């Protein structure tokens, strides 16, 4: 599904923040991405959601080299990736409903289908009473849940989550991890970047450890 081969990344000609990273992410796999601050987790995630192209090496998504793919092909690949950002990246001018519905609207679904899908996931994630609210009026945990709902609503083939349970209590954290495992069982490849050792112990999956920009 995703193949990284001797990938390096540097920003604006600076030093390499990722060097010689090679890994394969298969369909239905579940990985944690761990490492200390500055180890390159965010940069690797950026490459995985095609927010950046590698400075060297190859990245292939669904057997397509992203560096050589044109912008339309890259956009089509991105549509298959759900991302939960650490800073949530919600649009504050939009309601919770519209934030969650964004990927479906981009995919061109009808408003009726969007309403059904959003209501269903909002009920599950405990946001049904907040659909008309603006994200700024929600707590950190609620905002995180909106970000999660937005990432999973389009049933992506790859789910990338950067500290997805950071602002959640244990109960909600466990519920979110169960959702990820449920999606994973349906074939979605999940990569969770986290510092939380307890989470890894409670929901054990292979761990990719990053140290100074290299997988160890």
């Amino acid at each position, binding site marked *: 599904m995703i193949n990284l081969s001797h990938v390096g990344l540097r920003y604006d000609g600076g030093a390499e923040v990722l060097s010689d990273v090679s890994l394969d992410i298969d369909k239905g796999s579940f990985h944690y991405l761990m490492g200390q601050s500055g180890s390159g987790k965010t940069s690797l995630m950026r490459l995985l959601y095609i*927010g950046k192209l590698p400075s060297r090496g190859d990245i292939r998504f669904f057997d397509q080299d992203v560096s050589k793919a044109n912008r339309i092909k890259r*956009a089509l*690949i991105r*549509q298959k990736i759900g991302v939960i950002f650490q800073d949530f990246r919600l649009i504050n*001018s*939009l309601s919770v409903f519209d934030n969650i519905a964004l990927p479906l*609207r*981009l*995919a061109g679904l009808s408003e009726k289908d969007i309403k059904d899908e959003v209501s269903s996931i909002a009920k599950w994630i405990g946001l049904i009473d907040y659909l008309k609210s603006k994200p700024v009026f929600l707590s950190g945990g609620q905002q995180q849940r909106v970000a999660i709902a937005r990432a999973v609503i389009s049933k992506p083939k790859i789910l990338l989550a950067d500290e997805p349970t950071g602002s959640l209590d244990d109960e909600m954290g466990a519920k979110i991890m169960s959702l990820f495992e449920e999606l994973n069982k349906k074939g979605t490849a999940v990569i969770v970047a986290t510092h939380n050792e307890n989470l890894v112990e409670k929901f054990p999956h292979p761990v990719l450890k990053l140290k100074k920009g290299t997988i160890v």
Partner: protein
Amino acid sequence: MAHLSKQLLPSSTFQHIGVMVFFMSFVACLCALGFLFVKDITGKWIIDIEHSLTIEIPSYSIEEEKIFDANHISKLSEKIRLALGDDPAITHLKIEKITSNNIMDDFDIPLPVFIEITLHEQRSDNTEDRLRKKIARTVPVAIVKTNEEWQSSILAVATRLKMVFSALTLCVFIVSAMIIGAIISAQLKASQKNIELFHLMGATPSKIASLFQVSILRPVLWGSAFGNTIVFLCLSKLALLYDIGFSLIDFYICVAAITVCFITLGWGVTRWVVLKSLWAMA
């Protein structure tokens, strides 16, 4: 698409474009009006002068360095009338004396006499040359010119005026394009985070550009419609009161063309600016 567009760009975002298009459209309409007016006037002149020749019997001979008296000028004009009166190529001959006694009171200098000749529509090609030679033989001091030659300077001014109106219209569109480009660029910077999010969710640059295009469609349409309507209403009122000369249909076509130009311009500039800006993204 409209829903997404509203989410990326709130409705108030491009009201400046609407106001700008309103003014620019108003100016473009006035330019079009000026162009049509000049075109109509010159068109009428050209139709009127196509079949005419004018003979001037001057009151002063440069070669002989002498002033003719009024009687002499009268005799010369009569001579020409007799020489040309029975020419089959001439349908009408009119001698126009400037004053009753053809003498200016203050300086006692006679004024020239003008003889206007209307030529037959189905004349041969060399008629004008033949008549010029005939007049030169009869009255050598007479000056013969076609009305086109007489009015060449004013026709040149009219042509220049038409060019000025066209250039002004072009300037209006160029300035509008620059302003739209600047507003879109500013909006791109303001919406940078949202655009990046849309981009990461799989929106193609073309799709993001089309969201901007949908957003500017309404202000451009409204601005253009208001600007044109004001000129249109004023002109319709004028047309009821006076004979404005040209067909209102021509003006309607111009108004429609200006609106279409503004929409095309808005869409084109928006697409270009957005795609150019998104080019930097992965």
